[in-house]
Every structure is written in structure tokens, then in C-alpha cells.
């Protein structure tokens, strides 16, 4: 049981600061999850902390590989609008 972080992560460190299990670490391009440490916040908090603070939709996935924060859920920018956003960041 572990969350995972994908490469749309912007390395803002917010998740690292709030993880109760110190399961998150920084790699060169993004944050990574140590799957042996991640508890999905069981026994700590009602909500999964990294997924509750992450500002990037789709960057954190549950153990099934589903995004905690699907497109539009954080920014209000739903996919049809997202298509207009330049790809180069």
C-alpha cells in the first residue's frame, strides 16, 4: 500500500513537509515515495496528507494508480480549458 508520485510533480516540497511517515524524498527532477515507508497516512490522519496539499492535478496516485486530484479538481481548469495551456513549462 503506497501512494506514488509521477513526473508532473513540480518539486515544491509541500508533500515532503507534511508526510507523517517521512516516506517522501527528493530526486533530481521530482519527489519520490519510499514505498516501504508510505502508510497512506493510516493511523495518522483521516486524509492522505501529500494528496491533500499537492497543488498539481494528477501528480499523486493511489495504490491503484488513480489520481487523487483529477484534472480540474484543484484549479477549476477542466480538460477543455487545459488544452489551451501551453505545454512547455
Amino acid at each position, binding site marked *: 500500500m503506497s501512494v506514488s508520485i509521477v513526473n*508532473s510533480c*513540480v*518539486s*515544491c*516540497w*509541500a508533500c515532503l*513537509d*507534511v508526510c507523517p511517515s517521512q516516506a517522501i524524498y527528493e530526486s533530481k527532477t521530482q519527489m519520490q515515495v519510499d514505498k516501504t515507508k508510505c502508510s497512506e497516512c493510516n493511523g495518522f*490522519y*483521516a*486524509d492522505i*496528507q501529500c494528496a*491533500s*496539499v499537492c*497543488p*498539481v492535478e494528477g501528480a499523486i496516485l493511489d495504490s491503484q494508480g488513480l489520481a487523487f486530484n483529477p484534472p480540474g479538481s*484543484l*484549479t*477549476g*481548469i477542466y480538460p477543455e*480549458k*487545459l488544452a*489551451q*495551456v*501551453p505545454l512547455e*513549462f
Partner: protein
Amino acid sequence: MELNIIASSCDDGSAPSCGAGDTGAAASVRAALPAHIQKKIETHPCYSDQAHHHFARMHVAVAPACNIQCNYCNRKYDCSNESRPGVVSEVLQPEQALKKVKAVAAEIPQLSVLGIAGPGDALANAKRSFETFKLLSQETPDLKLCLSTNGLMLPPLIDELCAFNIDHVTITINCIDADIGQKIYPWIYWKNRRIRGRKAAKILIEQQLLGLSLLTERGVLVKVNTVLIPGINDHHVAELSKEIKKRGAFLHNLMPLIAEKEHGSYFGLMGQRAPSAEELEQAQQACGVDMKLMRHCRQCRADAVGMLNEDRGAEFSLDKIAEQDIDYKQAQVRRAAVQKDILNKLKPEYCESVHSNTEISSNSSRLIAVASKGQGLVNQHFGHATEFLLYRADADSVQLVGSRRVSAYCHGSENCDEQQDLLEQSIACLEGCEAVLCAKIGWGPWQKLEAAGIRPSSDHAMERIDAAVAAIYKELNQQQQTCAELSQLA
């Protein structure tokens, strides 16, 4: 505490030649700031329009995390060609920030202010921000420290924050109404949960206002930034301004929304337009806030380096400073000398930019300067004064409206010639005043003051200031009346 408005009638940055004929929209409000605030802002480029020409600032990007989402912000954006808040090229750890500050301070001796302004929120990264402040206060104690925050974490962190002797805090408060807030903030992270909608906005606003009050109660200088968003908070900013004034903010800065489609923010993509210059000005007027001080606000990046009108951040990237060997002690000495020199040069400019408005010369009220060593008495020699207290008198009242600092020009009988220019500066500093009360005054300065249209008087030496000001006010009225009668006779 009143919301003081800082302004200069020389806001175009031209030579300080604004004459007494100035219409006075920008009255001598800077002088109305308490002396300790004037002292705090004199070298701060963001708060002082004079200082911004001479002093440099630097933001260290140690705070990438954020605990709220604003609809004008896109957290994915990171581009070195962009220049706006929240954008940085590289995020630093506290030790790296210290190294960068030292490198910049050695290269740019005008550096006076060090701020943490993101790219996220300074207090959402409390550990890194406070560690950075700790290192800096140990190793660069001469730099003023400030931070910028959305205010959500101010109340819980207030004691820790105040322990670092932080001079200035800027809180971005866009509204005090949760119904408006929910159109600006889609969510906040609060007490280990993501909270959305109106509830989120309500918590944020409560924390911001409480944080503002807690800071001002502790004597920290607080500026409030508001992003003006047409159709969303433009009708509301006057109410907001009133509230933050009540809570002791010393300055309110209204900034135009930056929202381009290519920035990828919600507002950018949804076609939310920015305010026109006229709308911005109208909103500023609606707030009763003279924004002249903040006209030079550049809405800097969170890793900006240099004078406000430049960004030299790229010269000080980590790889570029890695190889540098800096003699920090020598740099500190140089910095102190350079900044002292700037301040000395600034004084006359500062004084001359403090001007009266036309109402001062009208019958209804008069501005009177007083040389005092304290105890509420007119008890100082004109030439020994390093500060003049400014009183506004009318038929009913005498009110302290501020003070103006000068260099005492008289240090005894030696070097009198060299002191002449200081005398000129003192007199320039009193422009707009109709009289100056002092315990004693020499013949030379007496004549010069009279020539400048300022009536010197030592008749009220050792009297209580308020009584002396009321007396001179009456004398000036009588004199004016007599002159009018004489001219009628002629």
C-alpha cells in the same frame, strides 16, 4: 494606529525641485509617519520611493511549497524569462541561500533588504524560512529581513516569526468577504485537510486578519498587498482598506492582476481581464489611499536580485557562485560605507521631497516646526536640532503631524563655512512650514529663514509646545491681517 500614507511629490524620480506651488495632492505625509517607521523604511527599496533609487533588495527562493491556491497563480510555471511573483529559476536550501546572499552582498553593496517571498508561501515552508532567517541574522546582521505571506499560518507561527527580528511583513489580502474569497481561492490546506470553497476562504480571511493584528501589536511593520481583480474584488477594496487600517497596517498596496492565457492560471485561461490603469487608480482613490509610494512596485519574482528596476538573479545562480571565494568581512565593511554614503546623500533629497500642500498657506491651518529636546517644550537651539516636530494648527486645535529629520549644522564656532550647506538643507527641510519655534537662533539662519518665507521665533523659548504653537498661529494670523490692511491702504 492610523494608516499612514507615504508619498512624495517627486514621484517621477526627477530632480527634487517640486516647488511650493505644487498642488499638494501628495502632501508631506511621509513626515507624518512616526520616526521609528521612517527609520525602518529609509533604506527599504520597496517602501520608500527615494530608497528604491539607491538601495537593492534580494529574494531568496527557499519557500517553494504553498498552502493555498489562488486563481491568479499557476504552480507549474517556472521560466527564467518570466518576471512576476511566484516565479523562480532555482529553489534553494537555507545554506545555499546564505551563500547566495553573501555573494550578492559582496557584489552589490547597496543590498539592504533580504526577503523570502516564495515561490510558494514563506510560512508554508516555516522550517526552511526560519532556518534561513537564523543563518542570515547570524552572518549578515546588517540586512533587513522581511517576508511575504498569504497569512494563513501567521497566527500559529507568530511567536517564532517575531523571534527573528523581522522588520517587515507583507500579507496578501484580497478580500475580507468569504463570498468574494471563494472566487479567488479554490482551496486551502488547513489542519491536515484540503478545504474548499467558501469555508476555505472564510478560514483564510480570519487567519489573515488575526495575523495582521498580532503582528502590528508586536510592533512589526505590515504592508498589505491586494491584487485588484475587476468584477471580483474591485468594488470591495475600499471596505478592505478600512479594515486593514483599523488593524494597523502601515501601507496598502493595490496591485493590478497579472493574468495572461500563457501563464496557465485559472484567471488567465478563463479570460479574466486585468484592470486598466484608470481602474487601478479609481480603486486606489476609493480606498482613500495615496499609492504614490508604491508606484514603483515592480511585482518582483520570488528570486529577484538587485535594484527594483533590474533583476540580476541570473548572475548569481548556484553554479556561478559555487566557485567564488568571498572575503565576507571586507564586503560587509564596504557595504556599510556605501550605504552610509547613500543615506547622507539622500537626506537633502529626502527633505526636499517632503512638501507642503496649498492648504497650509491658507487661513484655516498652518504648519509650524518646533525644535525640541523633549519634555514637550520648545527647548532646543535651531542649529542643534536633528529633527523638527511638525504641528498643524488651526483656530481650534494644535496637532502633531510628524517630524522631519535634518543634520544639525551647528557644532560650535569651528568649520562654520562648511556647515553652511547643512543650514541650507535644514531650511529646505522646513519648506511648507510658516514658522519655526526654537529656544535660540543665530542671526544668519534667522535671515535665511525669513528669506525663505519661514518665520523664526525664539519668543516662546521654554514654553510648552502646544501653547507656543497656538500663540505663533495667532501671531501669524494677526500679521497676515495687518499686511492685508496695509496693502488696502496703499
